[in-house]
């Protein structure tokens, strides 16, 4: 006979760890991403998943019917509003003139051991300014 309550507690704790892990991942993306567009793109998804998993953990481990419904309402609210927030902030960044930063990695580097990644705003040819293909007149 499996103790159902202990099993549900274990599932809820595992979900809580996963959700907190995704929230920590979103916070780490703030440091790893080069500009605000990629930060928004990385964090909006991870934050939605992390907070929803934590609310779901509360719903699974709580065992109260009202608690379950409120947690489900919170998850639905997060899934509805998080894309809207990402869209509004990205549009505000674009309209206030923030340039996207593109990390360009040369597929055929002339110096294979050097750091081939270049960051910078996009040039007219679709590659970042200051990046020239090898053999191309600078």
């Amino acid at each position: 006979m499996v103790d159902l309550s202990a099993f549900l507690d274990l599932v809820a704790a595992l979900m809580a760890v996963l959700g907190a892990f995704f929230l920590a991942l979103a916070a780490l993306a703030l440091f790893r991403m080069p500009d605000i567009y990629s930060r928004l793109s990385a964090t909006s998804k991870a934050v939605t998943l992390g907070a929803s998993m934590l609310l779901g953990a509360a719903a699974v481990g709580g065992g109260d019917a009202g608690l379950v419904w409120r947690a489900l309402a919170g998850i639905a609210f997060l899934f509805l509003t998080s894309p809207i927030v990402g869209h509004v902030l990205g549009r505000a960044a674009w309209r206030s003139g923030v340039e996207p930063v593109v990390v360009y990695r040369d597929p055929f580097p002339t110096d294979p051991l050097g750091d081939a990644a270049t960051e910078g705003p996009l040039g007219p040819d679709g590659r970042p300014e200051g990046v020239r293909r090898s053999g191309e007149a600078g």
Partner: protein
Amino acid sequence: MSELTDLLSVTAQLLLGLALLLTLGHLLRARSLLERVVALEILSASTVGGAAILTLTRGESATIDLALAVALVSFTGAIAFGSFIERRRSDG
């Protein structure tokens, strides 16, 4: 709760604290207002998650209402900040 469940919930709270610290660091070092708004979004989502963990570990069902309220306020604040930044640019 068994020992394994206790250990897992302590791990979740530590990870959440790590997320809060990282976000606070980015909030302090960010240059523009939009970067700070993005950091505030993650901060409020971590608060929602912390309230959910409180509901889970202490068995109080009142804190999940706190999570819902924080989610609502952060959504409204983000929308207000976005339109404010847009309008400030087009006016000037």
